[in-house]
């Protein structure tokens, strides 16, 4: 009986120490997340102080008097020492106060809350398309490197990467909307539905696809889908280039491993070899790649949003930048940055969870 007991207890000990390690690593991760976020705030704060745009005149406008300027400067705390201003800044951010837009005088957080769901909807669909097309494309290239289909996949991917976004977007719109009429036009819905949506669909998530599905408004759902499919495909195409390339690279490395050769020699069908065994190991670093692309889409879809009149965060931040609405710019930057850090940490987490070697 003794050996069994000791085996059991050593198992339990091993398990609990693994759990402890996992917990401490997670705590570490969260701490890093926090530090990175503070760093992000520091950089945005620095930028806001260094940019040669005077916030006071920006708020009060051209016709401000000397006393008005002095009063507002005092009120905004611009006369306090820099570290104190930073402290107040951090405090405000953690209380959800990202300041007021200079242009509209609405709270920045409210404005961002308005545009973020649209960006989220578009980027999520985009990354899904990118993954669904990109990963198989990469595998296709990896299994026959140097072949015509490999070259084809790489060329198509490269085109998405090096042709300017607006070119692809406008040409796509011209072809699929203008000439063929296969998809809906710019905006999230047809004008008829835009007029109805506030009345018939309760805004649960502010993402039209989800809200209309929840409300059972299927006409609107299909209409919204027809409007989102083209910009999402565009974003998907852009991320597909990177995803397929990395998949190809990882898969090629993996297929050169000994265990793959062994499996092949043993007579395992190629499909299983690639998609079950190799993919299992490739999936792990691929998560990081997908996370990176997702975050990139969330931040940078400005041109897509402009062409397709999509009321998203990219447009919001860029427009604010062009009129020097610094609170809006920095608020948007913090939100995007925070989401990015979050996604990154999540992918690190999943990576560690999935890959025993990395523990």
């Amino acid at each position, binding site marked *: 009986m003794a050996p069994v007991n000791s085996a059991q207890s050593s198992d339990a000990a091993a398990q609990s120490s693994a759990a402890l390690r996992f917990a401490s690593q997670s705590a570490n991760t969260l701490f890093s997340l926090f530090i990175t976020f503070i760093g992000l705030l520091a950089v945005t704060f620095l930028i806001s102080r260094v940019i040669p*745009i005077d916030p006071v005149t920006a708020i009060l406008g051209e*016709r401000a008097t000397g006393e008005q300027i002095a009063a507002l400067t005092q009120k905004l705390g611009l006369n306090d020492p820099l570290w104190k201003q930073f402290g107040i800044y951090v405090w405000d951010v953690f209380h959800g106060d990202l300041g007021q837009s200079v242009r509209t005088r609405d709270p920045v957080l409210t404005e961002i809350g308005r545009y973020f769901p649209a960006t989220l909807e578009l980027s999520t669909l985009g990354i899904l398309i990118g993954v669904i097309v990109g990963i198989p494309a990469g595998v296709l290239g990896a299994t026959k490197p140097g072949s015509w*289909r490999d070259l084809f996949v790489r060329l198509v991917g490269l085109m998405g990467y090096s042709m300017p976004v607006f070119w692809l977007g406008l040409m796509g719109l011209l072809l699929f909307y203008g000439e063929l009429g296969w998809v809906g*036009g710019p905006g999230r819905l047809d004008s008829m539905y*835009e007029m109805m949506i506030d009345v018939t669909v309760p805004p649960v998530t502010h993402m039209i696809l989800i809200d209309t599905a929840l409300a059972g408004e299927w*006409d609107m759902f299909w*209409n919204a889908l*027809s409007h989102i499919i083209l910009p999402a495909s565009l974003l998907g195409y852009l991320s597909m280039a990177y995803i397929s390339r990395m998949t190809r690279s990882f898969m090629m490395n993996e297929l050169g491993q000994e265990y793959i050769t062994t499996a092949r020699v043993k007579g395992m069908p190629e499909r299983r070899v690639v998609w079950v065994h190799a993919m299992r190991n490739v999936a792990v670093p691929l998560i990081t790649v997908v996370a990176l692309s997702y975050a990139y889409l969330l931040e940078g879809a400005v041109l897509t949003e402009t062409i397709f009149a999509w*009321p998203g965060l990219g447009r919001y931040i860029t427009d604010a930048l062009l009129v020097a609405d610094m609170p809006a710019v920095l608020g948007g930057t913090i939100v995007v940055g925070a989401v990015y850090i979050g996604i990154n940490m999540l992918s690190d987490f999943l990576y560690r969870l999935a890959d025993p070697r990395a523990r």
Partner: protein
Amino acid sequence: MSFLPLARKAGAATLAALLLGAAPAALMAATPADTLVIAAAIDDIVSLDPAEAYEFSGLDVVNNTYDGLVEINPATLALEPGLAESWSVADDGVTYTFKMKAGVTFASGNPVTAEAAAYSLQRAVKVNKTPAFILNQFGWTAENVDAMITGAGDTLTLKVDKPFAPTFLYNCLTAGVASIVDAETVKTHDVGGDMANEWLKNNSAGTGAYVLKSYKPNEGVILEARPGYWRGDAILKNVFIQHIPEAATERLQIEKGDVDIARALTPTDVAGLEGNADVSVVTDVGGQVYYLSFNQKNEMYKNAKFLDAMRWAIDYQGMADTIMKGAVIPHQSFLPQGYLGALDDLPYSLDIEKAKALLAESGVKDPVVTLTVRNAADRMDISQSIQNTFGQAGIKVDLKVGEGAEVLKDYRARLHDATLQTWGPDYPDPNTNSSTFAENPDNSDEAGATGYLAWRNAYDPGAMTAASQAAVMERDPEKRKVMYADIQKTHRETSPFILMFQQARQTAMRSNVQGFYAGGAVDAASFWLVTK
């Protein structure tokens, strides 16, 4: 085979797209019959409260949801009675009496009274947002406005602080800030003393043909017609203004008939629509004027012959015919067409030989002009053309391109050398441009008078300052007109300003759309007369 999986995927995707798009898209080929769908760039809207709205898109909405005492006829652009059916000014020149039109109601059903009118003007002054200065010019402040503007029954009495030209007051009363709001409704939505400023961002309380149903920033504005509009009910029951910032996208939409009116097209898009039988294009002028100005802190720009040389080295017509086609018309004085006293003549044109001769006479050797310009496409195009023609005349131009805010900052601090700018009028009276182009009471650095364009360029207009100040007090409209004509002539021959263009606006409409008025230089857009 190796291509099969790929082909299958492509096929599936195409099929999905077809299924998704084909059915609903086929149904929605045209816009709903009772809705006017407009594609425009409306991201400039800050607020739809008439006391705060000051940008083009905001004023377009305000023009259709509110009315003022004095109105502008959409078709003729002439002043006509609005909510006041008649008015007069006493001999003292400072007391005005307005008789309110009878039987007009707000969209809420409340009657329009002189008290409501007085309240509206008082409110605009007290809320004190950007356009309040238009009213403050008449000596109204938050402290005195309750006494200066009073209304009882159907009579509104306005007192101003100086005997201004009456046309000055009437013109200003057509501005959006002087809209009459429903006092009772406004008072119920007051939050913390803001006089409903927050509530009016998303709701309307006016007499206009339409009521503001919804406003989603950067997405769209929905207007709904109200029954019982005093000018006759709007013909189209709904207006949906969709925010489409990309001109090429708007073009596709109007070609397909998914919008009825497209307002933000570029001249290239308009040219591309030329053969299209379903789309017609209407050209109108806007209020913005394009000009070059030179900082007279640089002695070179005080040289009269040098300034003249530059005036003849610009290809006004060439630019208006090619790179700026449809976006501008040549215009060479500071009052835009449509304003009282505007001049239509074009004395200057491209004459390189003349420019060279004048340059030689001026005695300036190897001049270098550093031209600061905002990085918008049209400005870049104009400045490159100027660089080219000035170069041919022997004047080197260095382009300094920057962000709008940055360029403006330098300009206001008198740090520029030369700059290409536009100026949009603040209100529909000639004083708005005259006071800024031709007046400069104190040219010193300390004065910090950035409100005057003349000050920004360190330019002392001399006798024109007094002349312009006198013109705003001239009670005879005909005399006033002549005064502005004279000031403009002197200005364009002697000042370091070169007026080049006036904005032109091209609106594309489906050929079944009639009755749309964009408002020219003095008014905003009007939707209630549109049919389709």
